[in-house]
């Protein structure tokens, strides 16, 4: 493969696409598939064929378009019409009115049933208008199973640029200029991580893409892997070049079969075209990617446990230092980057670090993908510039709280994060402000809760998750989470005394300070943040045996007495 051939492929696809009057993208993300989008896709293809309009409308599968609950989603280009809940019965109408003619079918428009259907152009809908898609820019507008599609929108040209005109130091300084920080949750500067690995002399190095997304309700990485797998491969290859690694791995959980399948297809396609393998773009750089499937343990998202799992060992974490940059996979220098981080790499290379750093806020540059869930009108996958306020995300993009209910809290960072109450809705969402509020950015789970949520119950839910997912290696996490869960259960059941709350308040910082890995260190966060903002709810459960939100069922019995 050389640049002429790459451009040739891109040109061919573009030429072919331009022959069609219209293009229809049918979402084939896991969400839309489960609501029947594959049937819609087939019906659409069949209808076009049977009516003899195969040359007029190009029907293509695409990745996640965002508002998964409204699926199956269908997008019509060039008008940018977004139709929701499209079942095979709707296909004929769409063909007649929106493909052969230019009519808008208002009853199918996105969010029409919510009385918000007035946007015939999807981009005008506040749901999309306020978003800024970089990571997800190709999701929903290319066929994730076609490398040619990816190449046609400039795919692998960043890799070409890197291999032919940049030194590894250049790459790292470009990444540094972008200011990008790790999207897996902790927000460590990506360039710094790469530099550490780059600076460690070793003939063997590894770069790992962490796709072990495990927060309840989070599906950012899954959607990227399903919707734009080549973007991640390209990011891995650039990372490999920057650090001197010849081998990359995608570590992905077994619960993501579609992501695994699409990524596997993508690897095969890239190898076939010589974009992975020996002497890529006729340079000295050789790079390969393989998939390692995890068995679905939350702790394997922790980098040392992840590497143990790749090595075929029990997936338990090890103390750091030594950090993976020094001694990682099989004892070799290793960089572990999140899916979303790697998906940002190609655009940074193509458009420049300066361009990226101008997006978002000063210390948190770029965009962040969130899985918006809970009691909010528009649930789904969104991508916003860092620094947008929580209020804009929930009320403008998310469309507010359904049923006229009152907003209570937003939970970010899943079981490692915390709850943000109403008085902080105008805080810009970036790494540092969220940490300041006692939560974390996390990998992008964003759960909205209204007044009917009990915050003690929420804390108990996440504590149960951590207790179940603790690997059991170190005692503070193994036993501490169990005790904290038991105390929270007693509070929820109205059997706790104030002394239990005191013990809980002693345990939480202890588990945070003494646990071996991030799972235990962050496990008390949901508890600590609800204690901080909703202390009176705890007191009501204990002293009045009353759940203010009406969620917890109080039982009476002999519990703890003093």
């Amino acid at each position, binding site marked *: 493969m050389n640049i002429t051939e790459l451009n040739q492929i891109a040109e061919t696809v573009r030429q072919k696409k331009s022959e069609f009057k219209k293009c229809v993208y049918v979402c084939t993300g896991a969400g839309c598939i489960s609501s029947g989008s594959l049937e819609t896709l087939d019906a659409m293809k069949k209808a076009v064929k049977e009516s003899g309009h195969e040359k007029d409308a190009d029907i293509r599968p695409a990745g996640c378009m965002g508002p998964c609950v409204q699926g199956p989603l269908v997008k019509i280009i060039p008008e940018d019409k977004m139709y929701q809940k499209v079942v095979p019965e709707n296909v004929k109408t769409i063909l007649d009115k929106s493909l052969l003619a230019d009519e808008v079918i208002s009853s199918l428009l996105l969010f029409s049933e919510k009385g918000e259907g007035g946007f015939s152009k999807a981009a005008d809908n506040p749901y999309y208008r306020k978003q800024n898609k970089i990571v997800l820019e190709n999701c929903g507008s290319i066929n994730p199973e076609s490398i040619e599609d990816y190449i046609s929108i400039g795919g692998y040209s960043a890799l070409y640029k890197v291999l032919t005109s940049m030194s590894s130091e250049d790459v790292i300084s470009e990444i540094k200029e972008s200011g990008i920080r790790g999207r897996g949750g902790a927000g460590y500067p990506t360039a710094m991580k790469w530099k550490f690995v780059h600076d460690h002399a070793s003939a063997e190095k590894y770069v790992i893409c962490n796709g072990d997304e495990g927060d309840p309700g989070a599906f950012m990485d899954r959607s990227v892997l399903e919707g734009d797998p080549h973007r991640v491969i390209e990011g891995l290859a650039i990372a490999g070049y920057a650090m001197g690694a010849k081998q990359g791995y995608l570590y992905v959980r077994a619960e993501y079969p579609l992501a695994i399948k699409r990524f596997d297809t993508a690897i095969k396609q890239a190898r076939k075209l010589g974009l992975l393998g020996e002497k890529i773009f006729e340079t000295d750089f050789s790079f390969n990617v393989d998939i390692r499937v995890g068995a679905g343990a939350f702790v394997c998202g922790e980098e040392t446990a992840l590497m143990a799992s790749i090595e075929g060992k029990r997936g338990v974490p090890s*103390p750091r230092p030594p950090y993976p940059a020094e001694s990682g996979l099989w004892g070799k220098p290793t960089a572990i980057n999140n899916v979303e981080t790697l998906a940002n790499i190609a655009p940074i290379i193509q458009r420049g670090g300066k361009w990226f750093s101008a997006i978002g806020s000063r210390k948190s540059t770029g965009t962040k993908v969130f899985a918006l869930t809970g009691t909010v009108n528009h649930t789904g996958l969104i991508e916003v510039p860092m620094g947008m306020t929580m209020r804009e995300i929930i009320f403008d993009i998310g469309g507010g709280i359904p049923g006229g209910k009152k907003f209570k809290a937003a939970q970010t960072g899943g079981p490692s994060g915390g709850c943000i109450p109403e008085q902080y809705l105008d805080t810009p969402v970036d790494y540092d402000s969220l940490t300041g509020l006692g939560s974390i950015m996390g990998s992008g789970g964003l759960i909205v809760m209204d007044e009917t949520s009990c915050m003690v119950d929420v804390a108990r839910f996440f504590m149960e998750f951590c*207790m*179940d997912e603790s690997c*059991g*290696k*170190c005692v*503070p996490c193994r036993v501490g989470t*169990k005790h904290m869960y038991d105390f929270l259960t007693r509070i929820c059941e109205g059997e706790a005394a104030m002394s239990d709350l005191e013990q809980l308040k002693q345990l939480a910082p202890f588990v945070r*300070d003494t646990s*071996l890995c991030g799972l235990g260190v962050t496990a008390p966060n949901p508890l600590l943040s609800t204690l901080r903002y909703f202390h009176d709810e705890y007191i009501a459960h204990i002293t009045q045996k009353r759940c203010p939100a009406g969620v917890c069922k109080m039982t009476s019995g002999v519990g703890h007495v003093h």
Partner: protein
Amino acid sequence: MSTKYSVTIDGKTVEAGPKQTILDVCKTAGVDIMTLCYLEGVSNVGACRLCLVEVEGTQKLLPACTTTVAPNQKIQTNTDKLKQYRKMTLELFFSERNHICSVCVANNNCQLQNLAREAGVDHIRFPYIFPEAHTDASHKEFMMDHNRCILCTRCVRVCDEVEGAHTWDVMGRGYQSRIISDFDQPWGDSSTCTSCGKCVEVCPVGALWPKDAMLGHLKKSPEMVTELVHKRKHRS
């Protein structure tokens, strides 16, 4: 590299070499550090969290057994916070399974008991969990009592790294983790166990014990494994 540098432990300046762990340096300097999962001769896992120390410049508490020293590092091993945390850690160990000292073979020869005494643990503030745990008496010579297991994995490591049998491993997650032999078969049915007894010797509590041991009269010698490893290393 033979360069030596100095570090400060509890205000005392001591000499240390590269790649030495904080624990090694403390031992040489005569600073006592509480350990439980640590055993000289097998790999260090940093799991029991009793050897955590404070290092100036980092907010994280670091396990002395797995952290290597850096030049001019300032280490604190006995702050009020560390003392309080060690006590809590020990209490968690006691609250986890069913430790009934009065009926335990290791009573008065138990490392957990000794450490608790040393740390001034006179009662367990956290409610006992009282899990249903079992004993495995299927081995002809030894007993495994999961009621007393603290999951330090010394048995797992010594069996794998010193004996080379890898009979023991860990199964399950969180507080439901437990030690298993082979593929969770009764110990007596294990096809890998050589009955060497090293696991019994290194077990710091009364979880593993020879069947002929009498109540309160069990004496273990974990140092025999340390010596064995040392002798193997220096055999020429």
